[in-house]
């Protein structure tokens, strides 16, 4: 790619654009937090960022390294306890958008963050659920941001940690989940959205310079492209400068590595 931005920057910018101004967003740490804060600092100044550690309306000046950084509490409209954030605010139906990452994702946008391999004898023990299972079920809609390759975009999950559309079709609705589920998956290659009927993720927008063959080769299932598949608008100068400033402030505050993905 000869562009003057990286694939990670394209992913973060594309994810940030998905968050509408004024939305109340429950934010996971890492990529989702970066994208949500970029949105807040660009087109969505009135987005309300909620973190599971308790800050509501957090406006961090640097990206948090942990989900409970002091800067989140200091810049929030209010800080509530962890039981309250999950009981009253998430389960209570106050969250418009859940913004999640994933270790593995399948064609119906179910997510695994628990184990690779058998549960009782895992090949890789991942951190586990955190708040994601209830965010994915209770938020009105869900955005997922994840790098796309054959390790992440798998045919079958080793463990379903957080549900998307289960086995597809109306399976999610039949299971009685309150939120409507994932509306978009944003990767470093493209944007996928669930088909309205089958609920299988289809590529709807390809990032500039990315070949279809690369997307196919980075997905374990036979990924489909929507008929009206478009090219994603490349990151605009303002988006890039705000993102880079945010990352530079973060690196200065946390030390060389800055925020981990």
């Amino acid at each position, binding site marked *: 790619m000869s562009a003057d931005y990286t694939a990670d920057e394209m992913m973060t910018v594309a994810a940030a654009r998905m968050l509408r101004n004024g939305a109340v967003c429950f934010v996971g740490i890492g990529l989702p937090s970066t994208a949500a804060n970029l949105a807040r600092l660009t087109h969505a100044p009135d987005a309300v960022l909620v973190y599971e550690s308790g800050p509501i309306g957090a406006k961090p000046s640097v990206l948090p390294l942990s989900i409970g950084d002091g800067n989140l509490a200091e810049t929030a409209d209010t800080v509530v306890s962890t039981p309250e954030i999950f009981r009253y605010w998430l389960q209570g139906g106050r969250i418009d958008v859940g913004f999640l990452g994933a270790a593995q994702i399948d064609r119906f946008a179910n997510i695994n963050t*628990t184990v690779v391999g058998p549960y009782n004898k895992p090949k890789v023990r991942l951190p586990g659920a955190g708040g994601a299972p209830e965010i994915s079920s209770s938020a009105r809609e869900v955005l997922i941001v994840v790098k796309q390759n054959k390790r992440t975009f798998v045919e079958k999950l080793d463990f379903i940690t957080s549900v998307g559309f289960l086995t597809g079709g109306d399976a999610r609705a039949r299971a*009685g989940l309150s939120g409507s589920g994932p509306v978009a998956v944003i990767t470093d290659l493209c944007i996928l959205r669930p088909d309205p009927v089958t609920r299988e993720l289809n590529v709807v927008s390809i990032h500039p310079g990315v070949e279809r063959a690369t997307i196919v080769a980075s997905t374990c299932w036979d990924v489909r492209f929507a008929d009206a598949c478009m090219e994603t608008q490349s990151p605009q100068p303002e988006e890039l400068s705000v993102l880079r400033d945010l990352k530079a402030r973060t690196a200065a505050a946390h030390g060389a590595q800055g925020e981990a993905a």
Partner: protein
Amino acid sequence: MAEWMSLAEAIAANVHDGDTIAMEGFTHLIPFAAGHEVIRQKLKNLSLIRMTPDLIYDQLIGAGCAKKLTFSWGGNPGVGSLHRFRDAVENEWPTPLEIEERSHSDLANAYVAGAANLPFSVLRGYTGSDFARVNDRIRNITCPFTGEVLAATPSVRPDVTVIHAQKADRKGNVLLWGILGVQKEAVLAAKRAIVTVEERVESLDAAPNACILPSWVVNAVCNVPRGATPSYAHGYYERDNVFYRTWDRIARDRESFNAWVNRHIHGTKNFEEYLQSLADSSEQVV
């Protein structure tokens, strides 16, 4: 009534081999000094409960203090894996570790149920996930009024809860603020409670709705300045992000972990000495 005592006395009096123990603090106010003292006193067969095991339980697990872990997110925040936790789960080192895995929402609810003296908690959760397949304590209950099927899970009732807070007064009333996590619920759900604090003050001078744990729900209060480092204490010191990253290197390898524990925990008498020992070694290493 809470008694002021040294942390070593508080752990010796309130934590026993085989106990179920919750050492809470959601990224903020993690009671590291108390965790180290449990390692120093070589307590065994503990059932550990914590939403985010963090470095504190990585240390306890690697040091061989734990037989079981109940948790909901087991990573090194902002860094990656907890290597001692992973080595215990993947390779049974230094001993097999039974795990009971839940979600944040569930565990937070389970602490609330424990504090409220209820046997189980109810939530909208886990639907469609694989948790119930691997944890038979995650079950369903049907609402007697609406017929809705909800998740039911056992409440958390620790033998002992340990938290760190900013202040306690002469009588042992405790004040904490900032990100509160589940500390209040964890203390009220437990049979016994130990609180370490940044400072002992004459009076708390707190606003009416402040998060205060009255002296009479706490057994022991210990004055341990910086007792939450490398996590942070709002208003006192910041999170030591460099240590969290350095831990990745220390804990990745069994030998370097053992050397670290022997030098900085078993090789020191208390947390003050530990901090000095760490400062001395960082001059050499970094």
